[in-house]
């Protein structure tokens, strides 16, 4: 038997809410199969199981409270020999590691300071009554979220016992006065809080160093124009794909920048999973991974990027994409910024930034010519590497971009 726990989908995640089970008790689960959807402060994430077996018992019904990371959600009867399977990268022991790596985590934003701690996770022995689903109208569910009303405590008076808007608002009015009348944890605010926690931790714990270099993009763009002329419009590549590929390949040359800072030391990763910073339309950002970005063809990388952006904005990322990035790449070029000196996403070791590709005067053999150039930057964790390593990395990026046909 293995407990299926509330996963830690990123260093800034302290709690999650179960949105949906995609498997029923008794159903077979393959390793790596998505079995549940979990809401984090940032997104709804499809969560995969890292053991193969049978879903034995569901402990937490969808739509309930926010639960701390590590709360058992279900019991899986693992197949013989299958229990060894562990999630990749630092997600391996998320629950246990959390208190160590995240000291003085701020309280969840919907609980006022000094207020009683959030309700304990549902005891494993008390699944929702018979697994019966209580009907809740869409607006009642939405309003309950806004008012912080626990739907499990609301009695439905609508047709068929449905919990209606009126039931939720009545429950909110009748709540004991001692309960925090905290304003609802609006989704956007929760994302802001999560980013605030991660970025404050980064700047508190990680001694950043910053490097920047300007790279001649004329060869890369000329090669791209030739290559794109042979491709159907829908498959044409953007310059950003070359930048991501070059940044990923350069990590092979300087592996000390690729990985995590865990338990007081750097742990390099054998695989290169590029976290791509994606701004969300409603505000905020996520940085999910493109797995093995250094090994993908440009066409495959382009397709993955498009897919990742679409799914990030639609809120359907996979748990492995949230936990696996071994480094992050960000670009604000499309917003006209020429250089970005980013904040490292803990526990990663580095962040690579690209600005806008702009035409600038450029000296070649003693003559000034106009060339398209881009500013590449590196934010490095000085505990793990020194500026020398970082300089080698940016040099590798610049060199790779001079041989675009090899990317």
């Amino acid at each position, binding site marked *: 038997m293995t407990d299926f726990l509330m996963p830690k989908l990123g260093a800034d995640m302290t709690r999650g809410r179960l949105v949906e089970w995609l498997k029923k008790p008794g159903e077979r689960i393959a390793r790596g199969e998505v079995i549940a959807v979990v809401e984090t402060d940032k997104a709804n994430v499809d969560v995969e199981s890292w053991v193969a077996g049978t879903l034995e018992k569901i402990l937490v019904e969808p739509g309930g409270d926010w639960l701390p990371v590590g709360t058992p959600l279900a019991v899986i009867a693992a197949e013989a020999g299958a229990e060894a399977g562990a999630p990749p990268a630092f997600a391996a022991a998320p629950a246990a590691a959390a208190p160590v790596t995240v000291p003085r985590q701020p309280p969840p934003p919907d609980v006022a300071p000094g207020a009683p701690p959030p309700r304990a996770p549902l005891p494993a022995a008390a699944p929702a009554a018979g697994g019966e689903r209580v009907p809740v*109208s*869409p*607006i*009642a569910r939405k309003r309950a979220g806004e008012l912080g009303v626990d739907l499990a405590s609301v009695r439905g008076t*609508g*047709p068929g016992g*449905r919990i*209606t*808007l*009126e039931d939720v608002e009545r429950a909110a009015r009748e709540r004991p006065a001692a309960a925090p009348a905290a304003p609802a944890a609006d989704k956007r605010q929760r994302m802001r809080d999560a980013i605030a926690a991660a970025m404050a931790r980064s700047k508190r714990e990680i001694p950043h160093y910053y490097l920047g270099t300007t790279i001649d993009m004329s060869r890369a763009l000329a090669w791209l124009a030739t290559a794109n002329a042979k491709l159907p419009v829908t498959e044409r590549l953007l310059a950003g794909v070359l930048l991501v590929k070059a940044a990923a390949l350069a990590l092979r040359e300087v592996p000390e920048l690729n990985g995590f800072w865990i338990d007081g030391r750097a742990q390099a990763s054998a695989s290169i999973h590029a976290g791509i910073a994606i701004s969300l339309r409603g505000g905020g950002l996520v940085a999910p991974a493109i797995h093995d970005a250094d090994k993908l063809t440009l066409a495959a990388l382009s397709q993955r990027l498009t897919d990742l952006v679409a799914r990030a904005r639609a809120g359907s990322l996979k748990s492995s994409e949230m936990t696996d990035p071994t480094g992050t790449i960000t670009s604000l070029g499309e917003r006209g910024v020429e250089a970005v000196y980013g904040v490292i996403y803990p526990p990663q070791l580095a962040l690579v930034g690209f600005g806008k590709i702009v035409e600038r005067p450029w000296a070649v053999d003693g003559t000034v010519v106009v060339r398209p150039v881009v500013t590449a930057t590196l934010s490095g964790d000085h505990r793990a590497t020194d500026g020398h390593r970082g300089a080698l990395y940016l040099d590798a990026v610049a060199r790779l971009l001079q041989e675009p046909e090899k990317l």
Partner: protein
Amino acid sequence: MAKTTYREAVRAALREAMRADPRVFLMGEDVGRYGGAFAVSLGLLDEFGPERIRDTPLSESGFLGAGIGAALGGMRPIVEIMTVNFSLLSLDQLVNNAATLRHMSGGQFSVPLVVRMASGGGRSLAAQHSHSFEGWYAHVPGIKVVTPATVADAKGLLLAALTEPDPVVILEHATLYPLEGDDTPDEPMQIGLAAVRRPGQHVTLVTYGGSLPKTLAAADALAKEGIEAEVIDLRTLRPLDIDTVLASVAKTHRAVVVDEMWKTGSFAAEVMAQIMERAFDELDAPVARVCSREVPMPYAKHLEEAALPQAGQIVTAAKGLL
């Protein structure tokens, strides 16, 4: 001020339009000597003569096609089809020609054609004269579909149709012709806007055309029980003013859609789908609908009443959401 009937309001619009614009003419079965099957054009032959009030053979496809030709040739024809059931004979002309020519000619041609027809049941005219197909027309891009439900709209929306550069289908519910009203507009109204016919906060009743009087009666009955229903008259089915519906649902969180089509594939189904697509998180109950029973319209009065939506069913449906 004297009361005006819906029938007289349509006639007044026809008369004013023909006086104002020599390109406007009316044609259809029995519109001249007989004065129209529903007496809408009574007296117009005397005033405008047989060139402009034209009786046609019993060939809907033929005279609707002639109307398209006249519109292409610079006229502003109004084609009257006796009932929506008979209009099925001319669907090809309307859907394949009138609705497409602007697009297929790359914008070189337009078809400023107005097609009026009576629709709906409630008059013991049996299955070949009593059906409701407005949703079929509303399905087709390239035409506008108007369903006036009040005396004022009967005139104002017809005048508006005559200002449109593209085909407009006007469905006049046959039970509305004797309806009386006070004011009729002198100017064209605007096509594409729904109207709140009665404000309310507890449930939204969405309807159009011949179901509006029944829906207002249902709202009266609900009010006696303390339930304030907001009644929305769609007035135009294409383009559909869904924003007015959504604004009401955002207030009441409940909706019943009423129409006289058969329930399966009714226009109500489209309205419900759009509410659920665009206002799911506002709903406090599933959207309900009241439509006709799925039978050819019976002739016998009591059976016809049982087949059509009635105020009592609307009341029951609304209370089922509360």
